[in-house]
């Protein structure tokens, strides 16, 4: 072969020869979304807003994404007349040799239970209580402001949630006594206080503050007293998903680093301030995690091979592939057998069995919180 290889100069010239103008739709989309996206707001909140206010064409596009994704990961799509949604059931795939070794193509039903879900109806975003068959038990909140990010107390009697208008930069945490149907405001500071979660003993709440100069993860007693910051999130990295460890002495959260550009699951020991990355292989991203009800196991999205949902022990050991999805985990059933997942850009929540990866449609909505069994 007499072909002359390109010189380094040719390579450099080629690398430097990039498009000079960006598509107009980038700025149009970004500037169009600014009014619905508060600064220091979270990406998850933005996605929730997009999903819950999306128009029919967007929903159809979301379904197309699911179809493509499911095809890519070897999931068969069936029509489920019972729930009127897309019902994926996993097919054998080389990418998931262990977890999907006994795939089930038959529809199945999750056990009875109740799940709090955020829905936007007629432009009003509130929290609804659903049965696991997707039927609505009742609307838990009814306020002109948006109600989001519900999380249950360990005994299932209380629901902490965020109420407010992110556009105006004012969101506070409230707690709902589900039986008594009474709501109490827990935080009153200016700025955004959101994503509250009860400690395993129900006495404290960890939450996120997005308000300069108070950015950080804070804790308070369950009645709203004794508020104090336990971690400062100011900086170029972003931090989300603060969740209590089983012993109540530490919190877990996601750390998105811009260098080396990945997401980690970390454990912060509150007393000492020590931070340890869990299940870290030095290169993969571990994101969107949930902790099992007994606090012993993480489920999370990992950028490993194969991609999908992984499990690991609470100390970060024994990282193992679990299921392909669809989507990442958002909630865990009390018995630890089922995850609720949601594909990106999809309004649909799914139940996924961990033992065989079989998935069924649950409902439309976001931020599911499975009510603990009393």
């Amino acid at each position, binding site marked *: 072969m007499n*072909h002359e290889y390109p010189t380094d100069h040719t390579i450099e010239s080629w690398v430097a020869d*990039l498009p000079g103008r960006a598509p107009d739709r980038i700025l149009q989309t970004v500037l169009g979304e600014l009014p619905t996206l508060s600064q220091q707001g979270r990406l998850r909140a933005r996605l929730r807003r997009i999903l819950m206010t999306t128009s029919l064409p967007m929903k159809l596009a979301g379904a197309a994404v699911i179809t493509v994704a499911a095809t890519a990961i070897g999931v068969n799509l069936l029509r489920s007349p019972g729930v009127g949604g897309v019902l994926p059931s996993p097919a054998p795939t080389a990418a998931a040799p262990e977890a999907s070794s006994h795939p089930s193509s038959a529809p199945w039903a999750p056990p009875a239970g109740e799940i709090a879900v955020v829905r936007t109806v007629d432009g009003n975003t509130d929290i609804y209580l659903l049965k696991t068959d997707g039927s609505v038990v009742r609307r838990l909140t009814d306020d002109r402001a948006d109600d989001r990010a519900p999380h249950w107390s360990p005994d299932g009697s209380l629901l902490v949630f965020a109420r407010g208008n992110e556009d105006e930069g004012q969101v506070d945490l409230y707690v709902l006594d589900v039986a008594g149907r009474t709501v109490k405001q827990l935080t009153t500071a200016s700025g955004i206080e959101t994503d509250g979660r009860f400690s395993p003993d129900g006495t404290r709440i960890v939450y996120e503050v997005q308000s300069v100069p108070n950015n950080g993860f804070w804790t308070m007693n369950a009645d709203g007293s004794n508020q104090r910051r336990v971690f400062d999130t100011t900086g170029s990295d972003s931090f989300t998903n603060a969740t209590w460890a089983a012993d109540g002495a530490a919190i877990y959260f996601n750390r998105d680093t811009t260098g080396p550009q990945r997401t980690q699951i970390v454990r912060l020991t509150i007393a000492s301030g020590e931070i340890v990355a869990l299940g870290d292989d030095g290169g993969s991203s571990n994101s969107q995690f949930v902790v099992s009800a007994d606090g012993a196991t993480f489920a999370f999205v990992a950028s490993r091979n194969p991609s999908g949902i992984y499990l690991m022990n609470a100390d970060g050991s024994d990282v193992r592939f679990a299921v392909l999805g669809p989507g990442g985990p958002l909630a865990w059933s009390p018995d630890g057998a089922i995850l609720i997942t949601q594909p990106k850009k999809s309004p649909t929540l799914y139940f996924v069995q961990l033992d065989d990866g079989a998935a069924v449609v649950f409902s439309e909505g976001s931020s599911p919180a499975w009510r603990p069994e009393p």
Partner: protein
Amino acid sequence: MQDLVALAQEGDRDAFAALAAAKVDTLYAVAFGILRDPERAADAVQQALLNAWRQLPSLRDTTRFDGWCYRLAVSASYEEARRRRIWKLNISVLPTEPATPDAESSLADRDQLERAFRRLSPEQRAVAVMHYYLGLDLIEIAETLAIPPGTARSRLHYALNGLRAAIVADQQPVTSTERMA
């Protein structure tokens, strides 16, 4: 520029719109250089600008706005590359014709370089684009990406070596499934 950044930090959407308009073309070129796909590059830039708006109040040094934006664009491009990887794994590329032996054909060279570049990791592509397109030196790249200078140097070194090696390999007929981020 710094005045606009300061205004945008305080929530001034018009100021941010001006900043975004000033940076979007460059950010798009960077993302395109990493992803080599116009739609994916547009998605990455869109995400980077939304992240910029969201995280702008936490930017302490407004003089570093440009580098900070580049980092967000690179980071969003990495995420875009990772997000699509699983889909790409199942896509087989039809066998292509062997590279043309016409040494004078710049078109063939460009096609050859395109194929070779796609075989680099997103991290290697990012350093190459920042060096050859943005004109940043290795120290500036290291600061922008928050990586050690030695890492920036080695990524650029391996990127060039990878391109040369891939081009050599590309002289052979392509018959296997192409796997890329």
